[in-house]
């Protein structure tokens, strides 16, 4: 854990962080608003003080109440991974600026997040489905997209913890069929 890194982040972006800087293992985590993504990531990428040149990962997350886009960055200036969580995207129409102007390689990762979560990345030139067929209409990795759970419907469902159905807590009643033996 790089304590100095945390203080530097707080000093530089303090007023624009929407949550405390958290550190665990070799990761440092900041939370920002979706509208600030382009600006803050540009600073992290271009500024010689930070030099986060490598986008290690871009992930969409559906927390059940809202959406997030999570960036993992690497730089020679810190031994930690920097995790930037763009928080608070609404689930009905999640929108966030694209980072393809900094990392062209983010294009497919953004397409994947669009395909799986329906997050619109504004500024991505090629935002279409990448895995699912073009006429597909659902977003499979959203938490309101349920998998058929054979084990839960079996007569033994619910007896052994490993075979218990994993229904999201906020699922509409009756959305997931549950059998108790």
């Amino acid at each position, binding site marked *: 854990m790089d304590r100095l890194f945390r203080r530097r982040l707080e000093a530089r972006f303090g007023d624009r962080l929407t949550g405390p800087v958290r550190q*665990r*293992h*070799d*990761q440092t*985590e900041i939370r920002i608003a979706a509208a600030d993504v382009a600006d803050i990531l540009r600073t992290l990428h271009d500024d010689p003080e930070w030099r986060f*040149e*490598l*986008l*290690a*990962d871009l*992930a969409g*997350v*559906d927390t059940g109440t809202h959406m997030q886009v*999570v960036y*993992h960055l*690497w730089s020679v200036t810190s*031994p930690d*991974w920097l*995790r930037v969580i763009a928080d608070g995207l609404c689930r009905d129409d999640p929108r966030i600026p694209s980072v393809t102007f*900094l*990392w*062209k*390689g*983010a*294009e*497919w*990762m953004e397409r*994947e997040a669009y395909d*799986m979560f329906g997050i619109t990345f504004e500024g991505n*030139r*090629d*935002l*279409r489905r*990448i*895995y*699912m*067929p*073009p*006429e597909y209409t659902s977003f*499979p*990795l959203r938490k309101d*997209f349920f*998998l058929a*759970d054979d084990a839960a419907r079996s007569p033994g469902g619910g007896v052994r*913890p*490993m075979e218990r159905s*994993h229904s999201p807590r906020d699922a509409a009643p009756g959305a997931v069929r549950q059998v108790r033996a």
Partner: protein
Amino acid sequence: MTVTRNLLPPHASADDPRITLDEEVGGIFENVPPYPPRTEREAEFYTLGDGEMFINMGPQHPSTHGVLRVVLKLDGEKVVDLDPVLGYLHRGVEKLCENADYHQVISQVDPLEYVSSLFCEWSPVMAFEQLLDVEVPRRAEYIRVLSAELNRIASHALFAGWMALDLGGLTPILWSFIERDEIVEMLASLTGQRMLFNYFRIGGVNGDLNHDFMSRLGDWMSRAVKQIDNDTGLLNENEIFVRRMRGLGVLDRDTALRMCATGPNLRATGVPFDVRRAHPYSIYPEIDFDIPTRTEGDCLARYLLRMDEVKQSLRIIDQCLHQMPDGPIMAKLPRLLRPRPGRAYASIEGPRGQYATYAISDGTDQPFRMRIHDPSFIHLQMVGLLTPGNLVADTMAIMASLDPIMGGVDK
């Protein structure tokens, strides 16, 4: 001006109002975009210039390293642009993992990159260990590094063979499969499986080193360096191969970073980024090895760099064997794992680059979100950047030199 039938979506028919009939050429499959373009880039790609044509390559094509379809826009034999179409192997592994027990995840992620399964297992296992704050016994870490480096050699051997095969050379793949098969049989006696090992466990590994594995490994190590020099000599000193690969598909440092490249593809452009050194994990800080880099950034550099890595892997294996500590191979953990709510990111250096897992726990026995970052997916999109301007046959060479595995691309 040919568009094959495959360019049309499966539900399309001649009655579809979105399809314009091209009466002059006499068929509905001529000069037709697959469906109304949805993005700027798609509209640009599916507009033909003067004298240009589309050729569909795949999904069943021996050189695509799996089930990949590429739509090529050609001017004569020169590639103007290309559009890879993914999803033929998409299994929704992330969704399956989010509906599986923490232990069950390991067998779900195995078939991602089926030629280097141990690396696919490693990063989720490491992420879950971070969530659980569990310390892995040192012997288990050594066994992990030992088996994973063997797997890296097997993967690179396959790469060299495939690459030559894509260029039309049949011998190298037969030779490299001799080495690969020895390693795979060795790992089979350690893990019980030839390809989908299902060997790493949260907190350790599934089985200890056994006599059969050790004697096979000892045998192989005593002649490995000579054998590998012999095998790589077949290509390294091959005039046709070297002249074909040199200067082809050149990637420079800044473009590689902009394309999020990692692993050998990035190191071939001169950036010494290796997760084993940039973010040390497991017991790599205790082991002495170099990170080979090259500056040319062409197909030949990417090939030679991987062959250099094989030698470093042999050094690592040798040190592992000499430093192997005694002790347990599993941490003590309950059978049902319920990590406290939290987030973890674990990244490892595989044969193709950075394999990473971002896991979120909500306190139940199944991961709430599990993101798998696969280097093949990232590197495949560079084909669209490196190929235009080259010939159709070079598409294969460039794709092979980036070494994507479709199981990992499509997840």
